[in-house]
Structure formats: C-alpha cells, structure tokens
C-alpha cells in the first residue's frame, strides 16, 4: 500500500506554486496537510506525477477577525481554529462545527484549504462555508478570483477548481452577537465522518420570529447542501414546537440521501430530521 512514484516540489511563493501546477498538465496536485491526499495515494486512487507542497508558502496560515467577518488562510489547521478563543464569540458555529472534525493527530495537520478542495460530502468545513455564505479566494494562472461556496461545490469530491488553482482564503461574513444557531451531527464514533449533520442559524425580528434562516446539511447528498424548503418553513415564524416539527418535516421531505455500508438512505433522512429538530430546540433554549 505505497504510493506510486511522483515528483515533489515545495515552492516558496504562490506564483511559483501556480506555475508548477500549470506545468503539470493536469497531473500535478497540491498537498497541504496530506490527511486526505496521502490515503488516496496509498490506495493508488490518485496517481499525480507531481506534488506541490504548500508548506513553505507564507501568509496562508492566519486567522483574521474584523468588522467584515472572519478570514481563514488556506493553511489554517483544525487545531488553530480550536485554539483561537476569539472564534467562540466571533463565529460560534465555525468553532463548534470544527470540534467534530477527526482526531487529535489529524487535527494537527488537516487544513481548511485541503478540506474545501477535497470536498468530502460529510466534511464539516464545506458545510460551514456553504451555510454561512462563505467566499473562497482562489489564485491560478488566470489571476485571482473570488467564488461563492454555493457554486464552488459541484459534486462528490468535486469543485470548480481548475488544476492550476489554489484556494488561498475563506471569508465568512460577520456574525451578529444575538444570532441564534446550532450544530448537530451524528457519527458512529467520535471523530468519524458524520452519517448526517446539520448547521443552522437565524436572527429574530422584533416579533421574535425567525428571519434570514440558513440551514445546511452534510452527509446526506453528494456535496453539502442548503435545505431551502426547511429555511422557508422557518422564516417568518416563531420557533415553537410546531414550527420545529414543520421545519424538520420539510427538510426530510426535500432530501433523498444515498445509501452506503454505514447507513441506508432512509436512516439518514430520519436522522437529519432528528438532528435538525434537536438543533432548533437547542437554539431557543
């Protein structure tokens, strides 16, 4: 179970990295934390000719918090998020969701850029980016572009990234202190990829009704999705028992999760309803 042979480069500038990727004719790959890519190589599911390691690139490892929200450099690791106490106030949904990513060893290496680019349908970070209207800064031979999470994730382990493009940053819009939110997921063991997960937030208007509801789900489709039917059922309503039941029902109605060896689709659907109801319940307590 060893990777096939490949060339390796660790450039010190972003421009160099992009050039190397571009020179690879589609057979070069970025390596960041290696926590998803290395297993793919070891199983020979991926066989790039060239690995371009981001480790010597400067400036991609910072977390910036400002009036416009949170900016996460692509090389920010799970443990960096966990250890940044500011985030508990500045973006509690992010802080909570990331607690559920993998185990200690993986958390010390895995990066948000790698997670976004890898686009595992059950991964937490893509779920956060999508639910929170995140935007990715992407640098490639054609220059720099900014893309919304809503169009970035295109399928299972698929994104809109071109082979010579590198994600450099994720921006999450500012988080009002009074915002209601919840994160719920269920995995077979702690740290495993979730069989289903839900991320949600909304604000309360002067009548105490939910507005601007954002409800995202992971693990129930081929990429993270927004549950617009559930959002519609929540918007404009007081978050009561009845409302919660209606939102969960709308969510279950609107999804068609796949089956795999860990869970049949029917279970995932029911699980999502349970997690959503529990999340909403928690958001009002």
């Amino acid at each position, binding site marked *: *179970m060893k990777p096939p042979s490949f060339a390796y480069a660790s450039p010190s500038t972003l421009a160099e990295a992009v050039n190397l990727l571009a020179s690879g004719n589609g057979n070069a790959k970025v390596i960041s934390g290696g926590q998803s890519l290395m*297993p793919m190589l070891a199983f020979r599911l991926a066989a790039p000719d060239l690995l371009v390691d981001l480790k010597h690139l400067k400036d991609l490892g910072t977390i910036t918090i400002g009036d416009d929200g949170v900016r996460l450099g692509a090389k920010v690791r799970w443990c960096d998020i966990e250890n940044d106490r500011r985030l508990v106030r500045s973006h509690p949904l992010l802080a909570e969701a990331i607690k559920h990513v993998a185990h200690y060893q993986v958390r010390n290496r895995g990066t948000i850029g790698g997670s976004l680019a890898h686009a595992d349908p059950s991964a937490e970070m893509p779920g956060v980016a999508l639910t929170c209207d995140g935007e990715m800064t992407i640098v490639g031979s054609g220059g720099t572009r900014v893309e919304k999470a809503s169009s970035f994730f295109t399928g299972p382990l698929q994104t809109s990234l071109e082979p010579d493009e590198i994600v450099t940053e994720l921006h999450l819009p500012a988080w009002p202190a009074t915002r209601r939110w919840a994160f719920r997921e269920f995995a*077979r*063991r702690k740290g495993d990829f979730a069989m289903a997960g839900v991320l949600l937030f909304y604000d309360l208007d002067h009548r105490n009704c939910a507005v601007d509801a954002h409800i995202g789900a992971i693990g129930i489709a081929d990429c993270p999705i927004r549950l617009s039917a559930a959002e519609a059922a929540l918007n404009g309503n007081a978050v009561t028992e009845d409302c919660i039941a209606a939102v969960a029902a709308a969510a279950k109605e609107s999804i068609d999760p796949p089956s795999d060896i860990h*869970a049949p689709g029917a*279970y995932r659907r029911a699980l999502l309803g*349970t997690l959503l109801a529990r999340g909403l319940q928690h958001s009002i307590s």
Partner: protein
Amino acid sequence: MKVSNSYVGRPMERVEDLRMVRGRGTYVADVNRPDQLYAVILRSSVAHGTIRSIDFTRALELPGVRHVLTAGGLGDFVPRIPVRLQSLPELEPFHQPVLADRKVRYVGEPVAVVIADTAAIAEDALEHIVLDIETLPAVAGREQAETEPSLLFEGHGSNTAITWRACLGDADAAFKSADYVRRERFKVQRHTAMFMEPRGFVAEWNAVAGEMTVWGTAKTAFYNRRVLAAALGLDEHAVKLVEVDVGGGFGSRGEFYPEDYLIPAAAMIARRPVKWTEDRREHMMSANHSRDIECDVEIAVSRDGRFLGLRGQIWADIGAYLRTNGSVGPRNVAQCMSGPYCFESVDLRSSMLVTNKTPTGSYRGPGRFEADFARERLIDIVARDLEMDRLELRRRNLVADSQMPYPLPTVTPFESTNELDSGDYHAVFDRCLAEFKWEDRSKLRGRLIDGYYHGLGIGSFIEGGAAGPKEDARLVLETDGSLSVYLGSSAIGQGLETIMSQIAADAMEVPFERITINHGSTDHVKDGYGSYHSRSTVMGGSSILLAAEKLKELIRETAAKRFNCSPADVSIDGEKVSHAGNHLTFSNLSDIPLEVEASFFNSKHTWAYGTQAAYVAVDPGTGHVKVIDYLSVEDVGRMINPLTLHGQAIGSIVQGLGGTFLEHLVYDSEGQLLTGSFADYLLPTASDFPNIRSITLELKRCPNNPLGAKGAGEGGIIPVAGVIGNAVADALFHLNVQPNELPLSPPRLWQLIEEARQ
C-alpha cells in the same frame, strides 16, 4: 512455598513493558537481514473464477524485479495447508492451496508473488501482471451457498463442507412434552481480530547448510515448523522458526497461512533473504475472518421455568477454504450454546458453508461469543413470554456446584466429549448483581430520561481453556545461579514473560529477577504447542512446576556428590543448598549448567465462568446506545497476576463491544469486500467505551492442573453481545424490540424501533 516468595497472585508489573514503551521491542517489520529482497503478493480482485492465464513478462522487465512466483512455477503439485485442529479426511478437499490453483475463490486470494529489490518496486510490478480470469457467479452468503448452482468445489457437489452435531439427552422427547417452546433466528456478522501490527515474515535460506530460518512466527511455532518443513521437503530440524515481539494475536495471528509457505519458498528461489510485511488492507482480506454465524434455534421450557431442550440449525459461513482452525468456531457454537445452564437435552447441527469470501478461523471466544448471543437473548425472550423474572429464570437453571463435573453436549464427527470442571455459578451470579447494584438500578428500567431509554442486561458464560495434549518446559540453572526457562508456549502480547517468571520464581523459591524466560522459537525445547485456547498460563505454567521438581532433584544429586551424602539428605532453602552445616549456593554449585526438561500432559479443559451485566441508554432518534456501566465478574480458579488478568478482561470486553456495535466485514453480492481500511471497518477507540469494570474471583480451583488455574484470556468477550442485546431490549421493553442480529449499529436499532412503532 515460603511466604517471602509468593509472586503468584501479586499484581506484578509486566517485565515486557519497559522494553516496549521505550521502543526497544523487535517486531517483525524491525527484522532486516543483509542483502534482503522484498516480496509483495498479487491477490485476486475477483471473488470466483477460473484462471485462464497469468502473464508476468512485463513485470519481470521492470528494473529491480527479480522473480515472479505463480502456482504454475511451484511444480506439479501446489502445496495445500493442512488443518491443525479437528482434521478429517473428508475435509481435505477444502484445504487452501498456497497459491490459487486454476481457480480463485475469494477476493484477496494469493495468485502470484513478486520478489524485488524494494517493496515499492514490487508493488509497481503488480500493475504489470496481466491476470485473465473467467468470472464465475459468486457465492456471497448463506442463501447463495444453499441455492445457487454455483459450486466452489465442483467435485464436492455442494457448498456444505460438513455438518457437526452436538447432542445431549433426548431432545425430540423433551420438545414433545414441553409446556412451552420458542424459536428464534440470530445472526452474528463477520468480523475479526485486528492486532496492532499486521503479519510479516523474513525468511533466510542457507543453501550450503540446507537450513531455513524464518522470523515472524507466533502462536504455534512447532506445528507450523512441521507443516513448513514438509511442504519445502526439508527435515524438521533444518527449519528454525523465530518468534519476535507481537502486538496481539487473538486467535488469528500465527496460524499457518499461505504466506507462511510463500515467503520461505521465495527465499529459497531467490537464494537471498526475503521480507514481506502485510499492510492493513491486505490483512483485512487475507488473515482469518471470523464469526459470520446464523442460527435458527428453539428452546423448550417447563411451566416452572426449567430448561428442557435446545435444538436447531446453525450455519457458519467459513469463506472459501477450511483454514487451520476453521472448524473451532462452528463446533464451539454448537457445543457451548447451552453454556453454564442445565439443559436436559441438546440437539444442534452446525453446517459449515463454503462461500467466495476470505476463509475464517478462530477469533477470541470462537463460537462462544456467537452461541452466548443466541442463548442469553433467548433466555430473556422466554422470561418475557412466561412473565418470569429473568434473574430467577437463570438462577433456576445455572449448573449447581453439587452437579460438578457437568457434561457438555458431545460433538460428532471427530467426537469430543467435555465437562465443566468446577464452579459455584450461583455465587458469581449473585456477586455480579450485588456489585452492579442491580436492585437499585432496576427502578430505571424502561424509563425515558433526557431522551434516552434506560435498560439493564445480564448474561452468564463459560470459558474453555487449556487445550492439551501437552506443553514442554526446559529449566536451566546457569553456573552463575540464574535460572533460564525455555518454553513451548508463545508470547502474543499477553505478558507471558511476566507470568511465567512469577510461576518459576515461586516454584524454585528464587527472586523474580533471577529468571529469564525464553519462548516460542523452535530451538528452545524439543516440542511445543503454543498459545491458543487460553492455554499458555495453565499448560506452560504447569510444565514449569513439573520441571522445577525435576531440577530440584538434580540440584540435590549434584550437591550430594559435592557433600558426599545421599541426595535425600540435601536441603534446598532458596538459593542455598545445605547438608550437615555445609553450604553451597546456586552460583557455586556446579561448573556446568544443570538442565532438565518436563512435559505437562492434560486431556481436560479448564472452565472459567462468570456473569456480566450492562446498564445502557438508548437514543430512539439516532439508534445510538450509550454504555453507562459494564461489569464482568469471573472466577478463574487461581490468579497468577491480577494486573495482567485485569488487562485481559477489559481488553476482551472492549473487543466484545466492538463486535456488538461496530465491527463488520461487509461484502457485496459479487463477493467484493467493501471494508478495506479502518475508515470503514470501525474498531473501538480508547474513548468509545470508558465505563468497564472487571472483578476476578478465586472461588473454585481447577482440579485438573497443579496450579489450580483456569484459562482466562478470552472470557470477557464471550457474553458481551448477549448482555448488551438484553440491556437494549430491556430499555425498549415497551416496544418489544428484540435485537437478534449484530452489529447493533445505529441504523439497525433505529429500524427495529421504527418497525415496532408501526
């Protein structure tokens, strides 16, 4: 024995640990020989098919590739691996060839061996071998095995290899006259041992001396040496198998596998040392799988709750071939299903079915884990039907102390009778309830607290150990007075060196530090049997006791010559040897080492026994089960080392919980293994089951060995699935949910709850 010298019974820290935690252990991957080559094995990716051709010319062209070995290159006859336990002539057609011979029968079956300068080159070469296989319909489970016209072994005419039968009394009569009968189906999924590091070998052929040395053997070195020598056409004494450190065996490591032959054969062909290290994916498709048992059993009970009969049919999916110990589980499940209870009659048939999956073998508590799941679940179902207290129902049927020794059902063919040796089953049962605070906690049963239904479960079990026929020990009093012990037993991570040192130090009445234990390798003693069936402590330990008596005799004789007296007049006091005021010590007694060898023979198994209880909470929304408390109480006759034994019990229970909730080797209908890594095969991790307790008792010594000890390495695992199943059913009593199929995964439990609610 002197009070000052009683190591047996003391919680001695493992002498192995310092070496291990400092990274100074030598595992097989640490063994390297000068000039060695690397082997990698091409395994079938097709579950069932006929090999049309294997073309490896392009692989051989790759720089660094030295040889490619296929069945065709092994001569006219491809060696088959004999069965070590319960071998029968009618089962010979099912023995596995060391390389796929004309047909492939499971995904993972070795087809060719590539020998190259590095493992990486060898792996690259695999992709250049063109394997043309004509696919046959896969037999991927019991139903297909019984109904598909596709046969694994055309000559045999069916996919049922053999049917064992376990009988006691007259079951038909019992069922005719019974007040109440109940029939249920139970299923235990395929899962198996996942030890710390996968298997591996380094083999070195000395062509000049005609000697083969192999590092990486475990468990049954002497048996494996006989098999290997025969297959290579060598004299047994020209083959040396060397045991190195291992991180656990659990029944699977150390059996004779195809690689046990292929790597030495590769070294012979290459005339250079050859190393092979299995990776985890390979391990999951090539080392023995286990469990995979389905049963349809029926219980007969009298109105007052006495167990009158147990009968039914068991199917064991043994995979593509009969492995060295492949019959153990399927036989045990029939023989041990009545467990620690008096059933007036038993009639159980256990059929071994061949399917296109990895072959199976023993995994800790083979057959017993499965049998106990069925029995203990069945008892709770009976209690519910008869509206009896499930504790009372068990008490009424547990074998009483006064009934010992108590016969177990007899299994045929390869007839084996067996009897429970000793025990106060009721005392252990009551102790478990008391320690568990069953009474108090009963108030919580079935209650919904914070979204979780709470429940209690219980189950009793027996644990067989100490398989014969014998074990050998050689004791050497070195000239410096230290004591070397050489054993046929092998270390598989169970603390053998510590335990044997304790026994030897007590037997010889010398300080613990004076003892060195040498084990496992084939040049230490003339013969040996190894470590399986919880036998090392009892068998190896007893042989040390016998050898110690002989050594003392030799010490007296030696001293008598020096003292000029009769041996009977020499007294030994610790390391001091005296006669009439003259003294010698072990260190100045003799100029040459004093050496003795002894064998302990035993035809009777030891039967440790116990009761376990669980307190769980079930989340009906997710199907998740929280194990709030788990307790095991077991009587092992005599404890050699409470510390290592405690470790065995806890580890064993965690493995049981893994088998109950998580671990599953999943195949699709084409016979493809879908769980090829630890991302999909879920092992319990350190944080999953933190609340496990174990209490070990010494109530009834084993009457059949001088130590009075009973094998105790497997016990914990045996009743776990039954106990947890019962606790879950108790929590969901109001819904009448009966979890009779493993694993109790969240989706399965959720499904049962949904069905019950409709």
